[in-house]
């Protein structure tokens, strides 16, 4: 039953973040959800002219009372002062590498892919530089602000090509 509740919480968090990412289409961004790799999945991928962002949602139930704060100790993420089991930064960095590799194989182009970990409903303190260089750790609402401060890295046709190739990668049936 505990597994059931934790999966349900995770699914609801992914859906909520997915819906907020859908709203970014108004800014000309494209979004794909639940990309399947070999034994893992990417929660969301956001395609913009500032780069491609792999988004990993970490949904943790908030305490009934008191603050809900994500902070940092060195390279570690703390949730209300406690460390979390699996390191989501390592996970999202690996996912970003995988996506860059898939796009490179498919298009022949090296795309800038950045990993982002989001904690829906939690206040996320500013990241130290050592973490920011590897991946962003944010609340979902802060994502658009961070992206807007990035320089333009891709032309519109390059963004469309990445979305097209990845959509085909998802849609074409697996060859056995």
């Amino acid at each position: 039953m505990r597994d059931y509740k934790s999966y349900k919480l995770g699914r609801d968090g992914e859906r909520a973040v997915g819906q907020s990412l859908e709203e970014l289409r108004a800014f000309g961004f494209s979004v794909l959800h639940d990309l399947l790799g070999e034994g893992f999945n990417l929660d969301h991928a956001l395609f913009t002219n500032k780069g491609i962002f792999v988004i990993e949602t970490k949904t943790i139930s908030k305490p009934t009372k008191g603050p809900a704060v994500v902070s940092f100790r060195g390279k570690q993420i703390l949730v209300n002062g406690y460390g979390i089991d699996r390191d989501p930064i390592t996970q999202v960095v690996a996912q970003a590498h995988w996506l860059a590799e898939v796009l490179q194989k498919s298009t022949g182009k090296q795309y800038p892919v950045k990993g982002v970990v989001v904690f829906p409903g939690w206040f996320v303190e500013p990241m130290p530089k050592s973490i920011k260089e590897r991946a962003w750790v944010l609340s979902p609402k802060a994502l658009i602000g961070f992206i807007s401060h990035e320089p333009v890295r891709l032309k519109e046709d390059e963004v469309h090509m990445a979305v097209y190739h990845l959509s085909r990668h998802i849609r074409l049936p697996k060859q056995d």
Partner: protein
Amino acid sequence: MGSKQSKRSPLKNNPLRGPGQSTDETLQDLLIEKIVFPIIFAVLVVVLAVYHELCATIRATN
């Protein structure tokens, strides 16, 4: 150009996935494995026990 490809139905391709779809599928599997199957098994055991008891009662009354 690509006449073979144009004849292919787009419905045969996998659809794009929705947010949380993998987690939802895991959740459904968990629901069937941990809740539905045990309930079906328990109901089956009760039905068999009642049937056995009924047979024994009928045999005893005859």
